[in-house]
């Protein structure tokens, strides 16, 4: 068997059903045995698309996403998705071709130091030196990508190694003496956490993306309901706790709602579950939740105490840790006849804030189309379990704010890296992974232009995703910052609503293209898009460019200084 055949065989052994990629010189030998493989290959139009599709697939299914590209420029093109997956803890296995081992270091054609370049953006990477190492390395790669805190890995395969012959085998176990599997939660710490929970008067659960990675949404719900503690869900955790639950507070952070942000600020106990005190959540760290004790659960021990001291830090899988804490709370309640403090005042305060400071926008019947209105209409005219994929910017924040996420794994977006252009390819990946679900990408016009070519892939591969472009003709979030913090000096943010013509562009890529520029056409056009099932659909929503994302906590300021709306912000109108 050749190294190339062994590689494909190993991917099959790991349960790979689909991979995203684009062939080229150095990876040619591996593409040949793919013709006989059971693995479905999605031929992308740009290698960045392959990486984001693999991410979207992993987000939606929980299984590792697999991408394969050639050496040199293809490898550098997939660096962005690797970094994106690193920051958002997405399990990804990327295979890259490499020039022959003998040519490495000679500045050969399409040579680049792929393992060197990707070292900081992968959990680990391998340059294969012998064809006989291939099964072991692939096995290790999947193990590392999916064990502990998930993340991306890369396997670099020199062309001569792919052509070498080897004796096929499949390893029983991995040999990684330096890789530690997560430990079960410490029962003593779980008990300490339970005591803090039962003593707290103003506790808040701060749920992060780790809940989804650990398949812990059910466990979280049990803990919240048992203790009656409200839950904020970060951008990466939207859907981990149902928005229609009475204990749901929605998204905290820079564009979080007033109640979620302020509940954390005023809390006396933050129960951080799979969240990492990201600067977009904390604002100015010394001013963040100043009166709160911290219970911090994270599978990655390095997260404990990285940003904020944890009074109780539990390094363990979120689902196991939440179950242990829940059991400890039950035991405390049963054994010691402990009674949790009466939280009626706190609950009333939260309800009061919710009533006083709801998210708000104003859609006039004959006024310009508001982006928030488009999102609410999409939400109301699609199935409850629709998978929503967003890019990065204003549209992403509005989507997170206005969509009601009632199921886990229904929101796919780029949080940590903030990768514009994520939505279209990630939506393709999500739809490939969940073909029976409706998948809507909500994108900005700036983002869309970065990766729109993957709609050609979607058409060719018959992956009928739907794309809503909230076209405000601007790099909207940048415009918002220039308006608020740069005295309305708009520098290089105007894009044009008509250039390109999104409807024609969509049609040229084999999609149905639609346009909406007034409120009354929104719902009927969405219905029209929903009825298309044989190709992708793109709707160009012409929205009001002046609309800004509120509330807002300006970067580097305290969450106490949350700006609720234009009336309170500098330069607002």
């Amino acid at each position, binding site marked *: 068997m050749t190294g190339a055949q062994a590689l494909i065989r190993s991917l099959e052994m790991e349960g790979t059903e689909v991979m995203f990629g684009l062939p080229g010189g150095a990876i040619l030998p591996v593409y040949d045995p793919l013709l006989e493989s059971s693995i479905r290959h999605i031929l992308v139009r740009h290698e960045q698309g392959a990486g984001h599709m693999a991410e979207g697939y992993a987000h939606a299914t929980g299984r590792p996403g697999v991408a394969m590209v050639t050496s040199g420029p293809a490898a550098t093109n997939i660096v962005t998705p690797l970094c994106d997956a690193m920051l958002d803890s997405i399990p990804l296995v990327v295979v890259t071709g490499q020039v022959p081992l003998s040519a490495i270091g000679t500045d050969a054609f399409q040579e680049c130091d792929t*393992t*060197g370049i990707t*070292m*900081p953006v992968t*959990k*680990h990477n391998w*340059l294969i030196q012998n064809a006989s190492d291939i099964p072991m390395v692939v096995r290790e790669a999947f193990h*590392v990508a999916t064990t502990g805190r998930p993340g991306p890995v890369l396997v670099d395969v020199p062309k001569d190694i792919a052509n070498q012959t080897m004796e096929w085998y499949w390893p029983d176990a991995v040999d*990684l*003496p*330096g*890789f*530690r599997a997560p430990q079960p939660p410490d029962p003593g710490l779980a008990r300490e956490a339970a005591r803090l929970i039962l003593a707290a008067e103003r506790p808040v659960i701060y749920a992060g993306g780790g809940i989804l990675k650990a398949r812990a949404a059910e466990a979280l719900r049990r803990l919240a309901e048992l203790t009656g503690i409200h839950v904020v869900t970060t951008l990466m955790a939207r859907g981990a706790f149902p928005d229609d639950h009475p204990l749901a507070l929605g998204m905290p952070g820079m564009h979080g709602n007033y109640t979620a942000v302020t509940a954390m600020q005023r809390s006396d106990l933050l129960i951080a579950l799979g969240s990492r005190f990201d600067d977009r959540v904390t604002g100015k760290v010394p001013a963040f939740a100043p009166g709160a004790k911290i219970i911090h659960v994270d599978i*990655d*021990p*390095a997260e*404990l*105490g*990285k940003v904020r001291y944890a009074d109780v830090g539990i390094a363990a899988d979120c689902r196991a840790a939440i179950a242990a804490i829940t059991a400890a709370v039950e035991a405390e309640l049963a054994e010691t006849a402990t009674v949790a403090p009466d939280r009626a005042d706190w609950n009333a305060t939260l309800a009061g804030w919710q009533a006083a400071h709801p998210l708000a926008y104003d859609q006039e019947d004959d006024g310009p189309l508001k982006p928030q209105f488009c999102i609410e209409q999409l939400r109301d005219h699609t199935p409850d379990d629709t998978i929503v994929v967003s890019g990065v910017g204003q549209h992403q924040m509005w989507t997170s704010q206005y969509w009601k996420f009632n199921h886990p794994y229904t929101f796919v977006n780029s949080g940590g890296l903030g990768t514009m252009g994520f939505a279209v390819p990630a939506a393709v990946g999500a739809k490939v992974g969940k073909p029976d679900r409706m998948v809507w990408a909500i994108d900005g016009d700036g983002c869309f232009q970065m990766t729109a070519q993957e709609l050609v892939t979607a058409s060719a591969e018959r992956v009928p995703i739907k794309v809503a472009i909230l076209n405000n003709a601007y790099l909207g979030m940048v415009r918002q910052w220039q308006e608020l913090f740069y005295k309305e000096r708009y520098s290089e943010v105007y894009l044009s609503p008509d250039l390109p013509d999104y409807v024609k562009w969509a049609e040229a890529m084999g999609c149905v293209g639609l346009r909406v520029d007034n409120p009354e056409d929104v719902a009927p056009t969405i219905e029209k898009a929903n009825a298309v099932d044989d190709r992708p659909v793109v709707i160009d929503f012409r929205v009001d460019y002046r609309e800004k994302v509120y509330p807002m906590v300006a970067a580097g300021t305290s969450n106490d200084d949350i700006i609720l709306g234009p009336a309170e912000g500098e330069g607002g109108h």
Partner: protein
Amino acid sequence: MPVRHHILSVLVENRAGVLSRVAGLFSRRGFNIFSLAVSPTDDERFSRMTIVVDAESAPIEQVMRQLDKLINVVHIKELSEGEAVERELMLATVRADSSNRGQVTELAAIFEARILDVGPDALTLMVAGSPDKIDSIEQLLRPFGITGLQRTGRIALPKIPRGTVRLAAVPESA
């Protein structure tokens, strides 16, 4: 005196690129390395790195936990002052002509340094010992004019636990 340095004794897999992974982690996380020594161990699968970390650049727990995430890092031990034997080796070429060669060799004798090379107006010395001792001789040699200097950085191993019988007390010679 506040602790300025932490010593980490890090057992790593003996594979290509491991040094680069460790060095890259330090630079991208903004941790400062004061000195670094790498060498094989008694087990050919592993190498040992002795990393002296600037204590002010980051909390040592954070450095250790981030290091521990590297797949090729097998074991990390922080060696605190008093719990480890530490040694460093220095080579120094010092200006020494006939007028002051005697003073330099006298210093060398006091610090049990060996003279490795002699020229008409310079000497090369080798001295091994605790980092403090190396600092001292370096300071004393400086007025003569040091024209070449290389220190290995610290290497260290944990002290043999108390309670076990030490076969022979090895005198610290300076």
